[in-house]
């Protein structure tokens, strides 16, 4: 009984976290974009436009959810939920603060990379079931893209697993007590971090890798035919996915909730310890999210064949070689 109650409470917490994250991230994206584009951004609803996304969500909820006539109705309606549920599941092993984790499974990192592949099924489903050529092209692009870039993201994750010697998220964070892996692993760790950021940008279908919904080519790609709340679910899932990959990046490379410690500066280290661990985690995550938003509003989009050759010809060989280097560093104990 207590277990069921716990499950229900956790479920409600996760769902409300999703809603809040979606609202905050969409507003953040719009404000960041506005700053970069010499605009003001939303500033009408609430103080400084803070409730703009809430108003938008309300609007989307009241819209009619259209299903195209020739669509496969079952798959068409299922697809947004598959994408959303995949995003929800990845939340489980993420440590939000010291000892604040839903499920500290011993294969946490493996679980994350396994579940994150599920969302591509939802996207393919959406593209195929819409009975729209743009959607189909978008879904096919997305499939090829996510499957390819998962390799690089996976290899970057493995390099940290090699360094810390554990797949468990809490162990990985604990292993960064003396310093973050980004700094301790010499240059190979930095390369792994850069590749990880590139790969997850592609995996979340964000510009410059947003080919699945390249609006100048495919109008809106795989979600062209979606409207109302079903569209909102895709939209929300995109932002949740960004949060999740950035949270994983912060956990693996930037020490998760661990405060910044500098060698033997006792005073500095004590001062850093006063900042709550949840703030450390969110700060790092939002820094990475900002980076990914910055990419989107700066770079043009790659072409589909360039996207794939970037992965298979450059990122994958580099990350394989990099993994060998990191293994060498880990075996010889050369890291700090």
């Amino acid at each position, binding site marked *: 009984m207590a277990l069921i109650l716990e499950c229900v409470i956790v479920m409600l917490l996760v769902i409300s976290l999703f809603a809040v994250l979606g609202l905050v991230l969409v507003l953040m994206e719009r404000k960041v974009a506005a700053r970069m584009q*010499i605009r003001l951004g939303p500033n009408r609803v609430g103080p400084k436009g803070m409730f703009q996304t809430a108003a938008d969500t309300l609007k989307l909820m009241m819209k009619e959810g259209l299903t195209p006539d*020739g669509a496969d109705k079952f798959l068409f309606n299922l697809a947004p939920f598959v994408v959303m549920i995949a995003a929800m599941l990845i939340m489980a092993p993420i440590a939000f603060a010291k000892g604040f984790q839903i499920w500290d499974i011993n294969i946490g990192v493996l679980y994350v990379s396994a579940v994150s592949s599920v969302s591509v099924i939802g996207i393919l489903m959406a593209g195929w079931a819409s009975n729209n050529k743009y959607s189909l092209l978008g879904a096919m692009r997305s499939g090829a893209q996510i499957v390819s870039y998962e390799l690089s993201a996976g290899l970057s994750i493995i390099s940290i697993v090699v360094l810390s010697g554990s797949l468990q998220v809490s162990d990985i964070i604990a292993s960064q007590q003396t310093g973050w892996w980004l700094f301790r692993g010499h240059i190979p760790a930095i390369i792994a971090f850069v590749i990880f950021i590139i790969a997850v940008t592609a995996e979340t279908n964000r510009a410059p890798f947003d080919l699945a919904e390249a*609006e100048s080519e495919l109008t809106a790609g795989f979600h062209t035919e979606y409207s109302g709340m079903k569209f909102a679910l895709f939209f929300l899932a995109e932002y949740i996915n960004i949060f999740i990959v950035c949270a994983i990046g912060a956990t693996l490379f930037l020490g998760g909730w661990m405060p910044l410690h500098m060698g033997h500066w006792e005073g500095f280290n004590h001062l850093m310890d006063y900042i709550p661990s949840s703030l450390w985690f969110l700060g790092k995550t939002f820094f990475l999210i900002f980076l990914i938003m910055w990419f989107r*509003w700066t770079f043009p989009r790659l072409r*589909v064949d360039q996207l794939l050759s970037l992965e298979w010809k450059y990122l994958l060989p580099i990350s394989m070689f990099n993994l060998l280097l990191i293994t060498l560093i880990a075996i010889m104990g050369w890291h700090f």
Partner: protein
Amino acid sequence: METYKVPPNGGDEGLDTADDGALVINVGPQHPATHGVLHLVITLQGETIQKIEPHLGYIHRSIEKMCESLSYRQFIYVTSRMDYLSAHINNHGCALCVEKGLQLEVPPRAQVIRVLMGELTRIASHELWWGAMAMDLGAFTPFFYAFRERETINDIMEETCGARLTMNYMVPGGVMYDLHPNFQQRVKDFIQLFNNKIDEYDDLVTGNIIFQNRTKGVGVLSAADAISYGCTGPVARGSGVACDIRKLYPYAVYDKVAFDEIIETAGDSYARYLVRVKELRQSVRIIEQLIDNIPEGDFQAKTKAVLKLPKGEFYSRVETARGEFGVYIVSEGGTTPYRIKFRSPGFSNLSALDHMSRGSKIGDLMAIMGTLDLVIPDIDR
């Protein structure tokens, strides 16, 4: 009564059943990349383009026919609505043709004002193209930067001409009003600001490795093809064809100012891009030479109230931001033209699209269309 039932594939079955498994897609008339109501029927094999068929007529307004019932003073302003980004230059071409017929001498002040306005228009047009081009390739932010500077030009235009887009400033024999007293200072301020901004554009887009990969070697048009398709303007100059009307058949005061005709030989999208970006600097150069040397005097020649062209045929051409714009008037000696034909640069440039994009990817199509700089009302008059 029979009711129409939507077939399972959404109603366009006639178009997507190519025999060899090719996919036929209708891009437009409502599509984010066509910048207007252009309709392209694209045959795709996977992501590779096999054939492109442009369908026109969505914004046809019979402008040439309308001109036949307008007087020689009035018809000039209809042409602002063709290539709305080169409104001044279109009007200039029409005014030149009427002046040719009337054998009218345009005062030097008016000629300099016309060139100044024409070059400001060219900068504004290339600015919009630059932003839209980057946006087609997926970078949103340059669009806003381009518009920031373009607004300044629009403000200058508004002050002198009274309008921001369709200025209607040219009249046969000169310009409609004299320059606003602030004009010179504001243009100088703009030039000073703009010189730094072009470097910023290069930093943001021209040097970007993704942008270069997207445009280099894409949509190659050889010089021979450019000539045979009748391409003009930056499209032909990107393929190494010297075709700048301002150099070949100088009008107004273009033979008295120093500027270079930009020619690139690669013929790909990147070459066409470079031509336009470098033309921005050349336009600035022309304005810098003229802004302090506007002669005093009349801004308009004395003309009769009712203009009548002698019987005959008259042709004039000007270089708009998109290429050669030709005006051909057949006069029967009356107050209205018997027949008018406009040669719009966009139409010929669009005709090369199919040739340029066969065998490239859909993503390349955006790079090719972007560098063609299509303005649909110009193609579809």
